[in-house]
């Protein structure tokens, strides 16, 4: 009876860790899918879309996660196939410098103008 209890506890522990790992993979999968643009839909992520393209991408992402591929590697794989556009969150490179730096530049210029005006008013 005692042995049976020990086996039952081990069985539950193994299954619980498996469930935890599945849950973690599912969260990772969803966060990746929400960051991938559906190329044939307008303004929809792969996560939100039910198109053929989106369902193929969902299968591919699932497969890559199960193979142990990291989030960054999956994005790299998709970028190689479809270009930077496929990822909602573009990385900083020579094509995206303006995209990343222009808002910062405008913020700094705006801040400087406001500061100057405030000092001038004082």
């Amino acid at each position, binding site marked *: 009876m005692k042995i049976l209890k020990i086996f039952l506890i081990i069985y539950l522990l193994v299954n619980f860790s498996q469930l935890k790992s599945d849950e973690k993979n599912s969260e990772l999968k969803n966060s990746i899918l929400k960051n991938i643009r559906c*190329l044939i839909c307008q303004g929809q992520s792969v996560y939100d879309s039910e198109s*053929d393209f989106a369902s*193929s991408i969902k*299968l591919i992402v699932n*497969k890559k996660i199960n193979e142990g591929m990291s989030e960054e590697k999956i994005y790299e794989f998709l970028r*190689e*196939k*479809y270009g930077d*556009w496929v990822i909602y969150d573009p990385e900083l490179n020579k094509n995206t410098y303006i995209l990343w730096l222009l808002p910062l530049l405008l913020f700094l210029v705006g801040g400087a103008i406001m500061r100057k005006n405030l000092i001038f008013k004082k």
Partner: protein
Amino acid sequence: MKNKINIIIIFIFLIFCFIIFYKGLDKPNTYTPKTNTEKNLPIFKAKDFTLNTYINSENVFIEESYYIVNIWASWCVPCRKEHPLLMELSSDQSIKLIGLNYRDNLNNAKKFIDELGNPYTQILIDKDGTLAVEFGAYGVPETFLIDKNKRIIKKFTGPINKKIVEEIKIIVK
């Protein structure tokens, strides 16, 4: 003087915004990935359409010749339109055509081939569309030209036309 400088700065900024938005108007709101970038051929395993057995990609692209990978489906109307041109290309001995049957019903696909002819040296089944993703396709039909070094050198989105056929013939010559 200071006011003039401010007006000039605002004017330049407005012109800059105008140019960006004006340029944006010309661009289509659907995205087309670059078609001229060279890519390595993906490594994959797929089911053969006629033999119904699995085959590795290295056993598909075995010969030292140009290959064309055409993604098609029986439910795809533009595929029907481009089919005669694929038949024309298949008569060129320097090109081998590989068909990738995309998310299709096997019986319908067989009927399609029986009705319109088979331009392909081999047809692979892509039941869930994942193989098309490995090639970087996002729709159907799409056609990829593969050189003798087994690199994807060109991609044609949508049905091929006479002009594309001529372009392919010039490349493989």
